[in-house]
């Protein structure tokens, strides 16, 4: 019983990381119908930026988070303008191009910084105990950041002019264009935003996992599972499904191996989407 409780509390911080990982994917796909296969590599680059900012140059962790976001967002702008824009509307080609991009980015990082693991220290040591269950401070920080990002994204979408334009483009691209929305600019900014979120996810993952060139492919699979379950183009669905997936994997992992738990969850998801193709947590159909 105690294992169950401590695992479910652990699961909350895992959910937080998963949510931030998947959010960028969802935002980009929802608007542009582009599945960014290089999303994992953006996470990896964010983690490397964090390594350099904190471990090599000894800046505080918050600076690392900010610079990881900015660096990957800038990279996202460059890639959107040079690559994605030219392949607009061709799903297979965008998949292949971003796939190729992920190979290139991974290999460049491997050649520049070596294949070995890099370590980033925890930005806040210490933990507190609640009825005998030890909770590290960093886990609480993760959950707080995830909630903050959720709130910020919702605010961006529903309270700003940019968000209104973005939602208009998502609903009906050509109509929005007719009404004078600069859709090309919205695309670029959204892609930058999604990439930046991936970088931020990398920064948050870096202190608890090892940082290496191939780490991205590990996280993108989790991101995909979340997206499949939560439905594309729904922020609340992403949040809900990342909690469901992380909780079930983490709780099961207390009893069986983590990989087996993941495989089981995956199989359940495949069966579920047979009956609920639009994702578990989206009610509206477009």
């Amino acid at each position, binding site marked *: 019983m105690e294992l169950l409780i401590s695992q479910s509390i652990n699961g909350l911080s895992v959910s937080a990381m998963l949510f931030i990982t998947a959010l960028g994917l969802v935002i980009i*796909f929802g608007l542009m*119908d582009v*599945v960014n296969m290089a999303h994992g590599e953006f996470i990896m680059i964010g983690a490397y930026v964090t390594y350099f900012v904190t471990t090599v140059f000894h800046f505080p962790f918050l600076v690392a988070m900010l610079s990881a976001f900015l660096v990957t967002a800038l990279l996202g702008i460059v890639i959107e303008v040079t*690559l994605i824009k*030219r*392949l607009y509307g*061709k*799903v*297979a*080609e965008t*998949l*292949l*191009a971003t*796939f*190729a*991009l*992920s*190979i*290139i980015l991974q*290999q*460049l990082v*491997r*050649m520049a910084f070596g294949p070995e693991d890099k370590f980033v220290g925890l930005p806040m040591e210490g933990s507190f105990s609640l009825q005998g269950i030890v909770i590290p401070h960093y886990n609480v920080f993760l959950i707080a950041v995830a909630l903050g990002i959720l709130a910020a994204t919702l605010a961006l979408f529903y309270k700003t002019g940019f968000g209104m334009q973005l939602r208009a483009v998502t609903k009906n691209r050509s109509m929005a264009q007719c009404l004078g929305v600069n859709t090309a600019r919205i695309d670029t900014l959204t892609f930058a935003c999604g990439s930046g979120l991936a970088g931020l996810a990398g920064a948050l993952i870096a202190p608890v996992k090892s940082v290496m060139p191939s780490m991205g*492919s*590990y996280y993108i*699979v989790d991101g*995909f*599972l979340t*997206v*499949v379950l939560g439905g*594309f183009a729904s922020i609340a669905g992403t949040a809900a499904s990342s909690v469901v997936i992380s909780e079930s994997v983490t709780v099961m992992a207390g009893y069986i*191996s983590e*990989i*087996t738990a*993941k*495989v089981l969850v*995956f199989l359940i998801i*495949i*069966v579920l*989407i*047979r*009956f609920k*193709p*639009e994702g578990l947590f989206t009610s509206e159909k477009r």
Partner: protein
Amino acid sequence: MMKEMKNIGWDKYIDVLLFAFLIGFPLVGSLFRVEMMSKCIVYIIFALSLDILWGSAGLMNLGQAMFFGLGGYVLALSYAARDGVPAFMAGFGVTEVPWFMQILQNTPLAVLLGMVVPGVVAGLLGYFIFTSKVKGVFFNIITLSLASLIEMFFNNQQKYTGGANGISGLPPITIGSEPLSITAHYYLMLAVGVLVYLFCRWLTHSRFGMILRSVRDNESRLQFLGFNPAAFKLTIFVISGMIAGLSGMLYIPIHSFISPGNIGVAFSTSVLVWLAVGGRGNLTGAMVGAFLITWMESLLSEQFENVWLLLLGAAMLAVVMFFPKGLVGTLLDWQYNRKIDRQMGLVQTDDSVELRESDFATAKGKV
């Protein structure tokens, strides 16, 4: 008229040329290169398995290697269990051959299962994806996720799969008591390769293949015509999985080693690159892509492994951006357009100009 012109494309000649080269290769190549080339043939078969799926039906499987790996692992486990409990299992305290490996101890049955297991996995996965109403891109990300999970799973189940070390020391094919020579292996692979090629060619040129192409091009119109696209997608997915499983099995006796690297995302990526670079939908592109890239890879990556991966990514990106139909597709297009231009008289020769002037003259005369 369109069909006739497509049929006299260069792809057939390239196929014949490629196979003629492969038949003659052992006469000129050293034994080391012949062994390398047999691997190349296995990769060609693997590429064909994806081309009938992606090229014909438009289903881009991002995890095709899972079928290759499943076939390979079935045969590898069968070989490993032939003389009782294999060493990598004994290390984990396994004293008895587990039940699923007792079945595999029967080699002919194992060879059959090496195709049936990937086929069943493809069938189940396909059933749930294709009969559901999920959008096209889900197929891509689900296959990718599954390949990655299977790779992790095989890495994790050290007791039964040898973990990251894989299963090594697998024997070559023996007939009677003598193991086959490298050249005999080579021609065996080539024979299977030709058979698979002929099968794929027959399949893609049959009525079934035509319906597959319409699944790719316009699924809803096909539905209006009374076909059930899901059934066709499911069938081709299973066939493709079985051929990939076959190629995975062929890989075992010449490579004598299999590891999770043969089942996961990286290897799935390779086969995608072969098809993207060679061109898809006409078998030739898949074969040329697989042949050129794996041959170059084995020559180049001996020295520059890092640069090789970078080159591969760059080549893939360049092809997607500038030649979306791949090398062979671009070549065929160019030939086809030239033929059309000539037939329509758009290529200006003296004859055609005269013809037009005389037409004009008669038309004038009538007025």
